[in-house]
């Protein structure tokens, strides 16, 4: 019954999105058609219905209803409740339902609260949102029904991939989806504004909170995903340039560019066409990411060709929406009036430079991600990894970071380099000094050296916009920029430090043996078997002491899951302010004589945690900017309503 309710709600929501599209399109054509009054309510009710369907799916997973195919294939009655719920979106159908739900809720929310834009642009925007929604409803209902029943209930569920039974999973995919799908609103705004040719500061101000919101979620999602891969996979790395990771990085790069260009549009009414273009590109990258992850094409082009239904469906949607939006852009961009002009040495000029660099990095990542798929068609199998992405990305990242250090010091519209000569010299001196120290200490590779130097300069530079200002009167949005830019410097320092100073040790040790790694002394105390609800494990007990200090007990495990059968390594981390000790226990070592030995892999990673603290700071900066902007908008709205009220009073008197 629950499953049928969910399915019915989903069909109703799909029907409402058709109504929303038709009513919106007619209202757009006639100015105010008879159906115009239905557009906003349709969007709101559609959002509620989709949310209802998602709650029904959560319910099915919570009670482990094994007559539903999705539950039977992805859950197990012995799983802890939090992982039962997380299992609802840890699979193809459930995650697509989550996607559609977030998108419908976002559409409902703009219908509910957005009153600044001309009503025609809103109709166009909501119609575009419905048009995108219909495609995904069709995909869900026709080829990935999450509520499908089994002819006979299964006796027990097939479980969930143990790698995914982790608290990180419970929050990571939904966070990313909020980001991906939040960009659909930016996309719809861009299409709506193109249709009515009303691109200006009001449009930018309406779009900005959505871009900021989506960007915050993407930032948090990527940060969390990186940390999850770091401690869960047990490989010691924090970013693998894996296509699935790239699929989340690409929308972030586009959204970062969009975030900055939309600020230029809101503040200075410049970069009109470019902002629209980025709005289209950002959501296109979200859809491309979904296609890459969900179509099975990453496993193999041939696997995709064997079961092409879903992949072809998403590919068709991708072509329809991206192609359609780009076509509309090509037809309409020329008729969007040119925005305000500016000189190259200005805040706008610096932002344009950073936008171009971000686009270039996006291009590098996109080509590197798609290249293996392309060559596989010609039967040449390659994989593309850090030797490509790191240097090619850095060529554009480093100039971008240099301009990012001074850009916020420039004035809008036009400025002279000589005016910011002093801060520029200070920043350059810091960078060169750090570079010199690092090279003298022992060169750690060009990229790591440059990373440390740029991070130091950028960290100082990010606070320079506050120089000479009363800190209490600095707008919240400006604090947001400062914090986010500082977060980039912090994360960069963590990355460069991890790459430069990490130490690794791999050894077979008997009980009682000592291993020295960096400032740590680690000894194996004992090993013992342990058991969990759906796994058994070998646990190593390590005593680790930092620099001769008090020893702490660490317990890495090598786990065996039995539903489904699989082994995983549970790494342990010991975090200090200046880095992390990372320990993994492997199999019993064979070969050699004497007492039994265990494989132990240890890393000492100085300042590695700064990578994720930096990511959190960046997201926090975004949040401050969002609060500042929304506050500003509310204030403006209040002042306008007061003015209107006073005018009325004056007229009546």
């Amino acid at each position, binding site marked *: 019954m629950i499953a049928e309710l969910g399915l019915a709600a989903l069909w109703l929501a799909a029907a409402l999105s058709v109504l929303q599209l038709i009513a919106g399109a007619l209202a757009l054509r006639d100015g105010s058609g008879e159906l115009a009054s239905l557009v906003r309510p349709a969007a709101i009710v559609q959002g509620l219905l989709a949310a209802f369907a998602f709650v029904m799916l959560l319910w099915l997973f919570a009670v482990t209803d094994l007559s539903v195919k999705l539950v039977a294939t992805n859950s197990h009655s012995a799983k802890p409740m939090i992982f039962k719920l997380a299992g609802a979106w840890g699979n193809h159908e459930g995650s697509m339902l989550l996607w559609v739900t977030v998108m419908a809720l976002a559409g409902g929310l703009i219908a509910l609260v957005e009153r600044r834009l001309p009503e025609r642009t809103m109709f166009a925007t909501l119609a575009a949102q419905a048009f995108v929604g219909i495609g995904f409803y069709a995909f869900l209902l026709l080829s990935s029904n999450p509520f499908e029943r089994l002819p006979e209930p299964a006796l027990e569920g097939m479980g969930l991939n143990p790698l995914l039974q982790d608290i990180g999973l419970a929050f990571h995919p939904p966070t990313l989806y909020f980001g991906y799908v939040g960009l659909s609103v930016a996309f719809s705004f861009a299409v709506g504004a193109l249709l009515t040719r009303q691109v200006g500061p009001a449009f930018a101000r309406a779009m900005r909170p959505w871009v900021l919101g989506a960007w915050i979620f993407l930032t948090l999602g990527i940060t969390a995903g990186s940390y999850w891969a770091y401690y869960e996979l047990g490989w010691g790395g924090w970013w693998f340039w894996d296509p699935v990771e790239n699929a989340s990085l690409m929308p972030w790069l586009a959204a970062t560019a969009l975030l900055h260009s939309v600020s230029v549009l809101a503040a200075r009414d410049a970069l009109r066409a470019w902002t629209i273009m980025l709005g289209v590109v950002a959501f296109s990258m979200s859809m491309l990411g979904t296609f890459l992850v969900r179509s099975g094409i990453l*496993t193999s082009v041939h696997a995709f060709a064997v079961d092409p239904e879903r992949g072809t469906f998403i590919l068709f949607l991708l072509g329809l929406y991206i192609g359609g939006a780009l076509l509309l852009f090509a037809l309409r961009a020329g008729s969007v009036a040119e925005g305000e002009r500016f000189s190259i040495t200005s805040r706008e000029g610096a932002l344009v430079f950073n936008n171009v660099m971000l686009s270039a990095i996006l291009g590098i990542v996109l080509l590197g991600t798609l290249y293996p798929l392309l060559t596989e068609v010609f039967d040449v*199998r390659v994989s593309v990894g850090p030797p490509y992405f790191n240097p*090619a990305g850095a060529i554009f990242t480093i100039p971008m970071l240099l301009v990012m250090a001074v850009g916020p010091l420039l004035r809008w519209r036009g400025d002279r380099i000589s005016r910011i000569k002093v801060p520029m010299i200070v920043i350059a001196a810091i960078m060169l000094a750090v570079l010199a120290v690092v090279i003298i200490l022992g060169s750690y590779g060009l990229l790591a050296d440059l990373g440390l130097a740029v991070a130091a300069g950028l960290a100082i530079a990010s606070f320079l916009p506050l120089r000479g200002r009363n800190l209490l009167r600095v707008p919240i949005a400006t604090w947001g920029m400062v914090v986010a830019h500082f977060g980039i410097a912090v994360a960069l320092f963590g990355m460069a430090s991890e790459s430069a100073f990490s130490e690794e040790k791999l050894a077979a040790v008997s009980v009682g043996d000592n291993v020295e790694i960096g400032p740590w002394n680690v000894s194996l105390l004992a090993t013992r078997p342990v058991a969990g609800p759906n796994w058994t494990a070998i646990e190593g007990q390590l005593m680790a002491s930092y620099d001769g200090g008090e020893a702490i007990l660490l317990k890495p495990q090598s786990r065996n899951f039995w539903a489904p059968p699989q082994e995983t390594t549970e790494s342990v981390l010991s975090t200090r302010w200046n880095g992390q000790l990372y320990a993994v226990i492997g199999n019993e070592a064979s070969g050699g004589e004497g007492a039994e030995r265990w494989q132990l892999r240890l890393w000492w990673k100085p300042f590695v945690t700064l990578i994720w603290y930096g990511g959190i700071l960046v997201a926090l900066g975004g949040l401050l900017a969002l609060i500042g902007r929304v506050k500003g908008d509310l204030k403006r709205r209040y002042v306008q309503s007061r003015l209107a009220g006073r005018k009325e009073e004056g007229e009546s008197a």
Partner: protein
Amino acid sequence: MTNGLKAKHQRLILVVIALVALIGAGLLAAWALRNQANYFYLPGQMIAEPPEVGQAVRLGGMVQQDSIRNMPDGVTVSFIVTDKDSAVVPVRFTGILPDLFVEGSGVVAEGRLAADGTFVADNLLAKHDENYVPRELQEMDQHKADETLVAQGPAT
């Protein structure tokens, strides 16, 4: 008037810079991909046309029966990777072995060829579980495995 001209001029410069940067990124990507892409070899291909010593490549095949040897240090193993034409490449790996790494099953080794003809692996990808299989192993497990085993005679 001059101001307008100047502004237009500067806008043009911006567009040109943007185009140069983006086309540059594309060309750089194309060039770097040709040089830095990590190619996949079967044992037969690696013997016929060996990659340069030290170049990062991947080697995929079946782990030959009775070929796994543990070194005294306890963390290094050597084994032989073979394919259906019985070409063999010796492999050395130092690290924690993937759990489903066993003789007679497929493996993808990431690493580089050493001067003595041994493939030194930094990382081994074996079948992870029944659902996840590295992309090269996917096909190998379906047909190459059968062929390999047929070519080698009945497995013990």
